[in-house]
């Protein structure tokens, strides 16, 4: 049973997230359909796929800047800042996902009002949002206007290299999406993370609260030790 609810996902963020998810899905499906087009097994009719892909790509660019301004000018941005000791924290989180989770060990970085993401989420979201997604839309815009692309890069076609980068980045996003969808189920219950992204509230349960308190104590004693 939930003991406490914290409002972690404001409405603007949830709207962005769901719109972004729909656009990403549309881009992946139409992208795969075009890249692996086959007259005998058409997934989406090619011209429809091209138009849908272009429209979704343009909207995704707008969606990215909406999100970027959101994290820049609201308090949500603090959750994306990677703090000192990140690599050790990343290691602890990876160890938990690979082993601890199967032994019922406490979550090393339970969610609280000040910490929405664990270190793995933090780096993944940052890389996907600020590196991979911009690569897809910058190369995508370049492919919409191929006359802007350098024709020859060290003997290779500039358009071909741009396309490869676009497809590779798109592929990484599709891999992220699958893992991201799986991690919906890694909450207190199988559906609790999904509920949070719909209602905006994260439920903190008794056992999580205890872990969180213990972690807070540990970190405060570490900090006081350091200050001494």
């Amino acid at each position, binding site marked *: 049973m939930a003991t406490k609810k914290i409002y972690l996902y404001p409405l603007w963020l949830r709207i962005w997230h769901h719109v972004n998810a729909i656009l990403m899905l549309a881009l992946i499906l139409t992208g795969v359909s075009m*890249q*692996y087009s086959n007259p005998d097994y*058409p997934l989406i009719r*090619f011209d429809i796929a091209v138009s849908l892909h272009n429209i979704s790509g343009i909207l995704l660019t707008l969606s990215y800047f909406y999100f970027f301004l959101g994290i820049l000018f609201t308090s949500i941005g603090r959750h994306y800042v990677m703090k000192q000791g990140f690599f050790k924290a990343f290691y602890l989180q990876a160890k938990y996902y690979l082993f601890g989770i199967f032994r019922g060990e406490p979550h090393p970085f339970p969610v609280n009002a000040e910490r929405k993401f664990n270190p793995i989420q933090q780096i993944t979201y940052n890389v996907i949002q600020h590196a991979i997604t911009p690569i897809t839309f910058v190369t995508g815009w370049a492919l919409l206007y191929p006359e802007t692309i350098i024709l020859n890069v060290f003997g290779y*076609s500039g358009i*071909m290299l741009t396309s490869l980068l676009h497809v590779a980045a798109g592929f990484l996003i599709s*891999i992220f999406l*699958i*893992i991201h969808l799986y991690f919906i189920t890694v909450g207190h219950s199988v559906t609790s993370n999904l509920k949070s992204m719909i209602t905006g509230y994260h439920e903190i349960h008794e056992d999580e609260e205890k872990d969180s308190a213990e972690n807070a104590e540990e970190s405060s004693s570490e900090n006081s030790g350091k200050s001494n």
Partner: protein
Amino acid sequence: MKHWLIKRPAGWIALITGFIPLLFAIFLSFGSEKPAATIDEESKQCLVCHGSPRYELTDTLTGETVTMKMHAELQIDPVEYSKATHGAFKCTDCHSIDYHIHPHPVSTKFEVNYTCMDCHGGDETYASFNFETIEEEYLKSIHATELGTEFSCWSCHNPHTYRLSDKEPGQLMNRVARNNSACLHCHGDINNYAVLIEKELPDLIKSHDWLPNQSLHFRKVRCIDCHAANNDSIMVAHLVLPASESVKNCVECHSTNSILMGSLYKHQAAEKRNKLGFYNGVIMNEAYVIGANRNYYLNIASVVIFIMVLIGIAIHATLRYIHRHRKHGN
């Protein structure tokens, strides 16, 4: 013993002044187009009038001279002509000897022009071009069936400027532009179109508005790549189809079995996958056709990564389920 070149500076000078320029000349000649033919003296006389937009006519009795405009269709660009495939011919090799008379007599108006087959039909020298099949295909084309004698080889292939250049590697964009300009001579010019047929000239931009990235397609592929049926035994398709039968299914080009490999890229297409693992690699030299340019190795790598991720998730989910089951069991 020292080599003579090292001992004698004159040897080096000879090498630099003779051999190196010779090498340059050889390399440059590889990159250049067909060398221009020399126009014979007799034809030069024709070009005095036909080589410019105006010409002078002198009355031999009165000595009076008038300047007249030369009809655009009768003008011959001497530079273009000398570079053309037929540029080595004298004017009277194809035209009546009566053209030597000025003003030209009425009989020249009744001159019957040669067609390609008059010279090339059954000629072993040009067997590889397969002119007989070209003619068969042309006779089945919309141009022949709709326009009959109004249309001929020369309607598209100007005999005075035509160059056999489709075999040359590179400069694909130039080849596409040159080829399409032949179509647009009528299909993009209301006056030239009206001379041939009493029909409204369709607006090409509107009739192709279904095509995504329209201008890109217009620059990168030839009209005939969609509007003519391929025939493996000839180099360039001549069976121009009615608009209703033309290619409108994107995946006919945008797939590994791209029809472009049998048309636009026919001369370069020799392998299915090139050494870097790209399907239809020749297309990538000057363009990228989504769906047609896939990479074999990247395809395999992406499928393997995808499957590994799914297996990883399946194992993780199973172990989580087992743990949860045990916990609740206890």
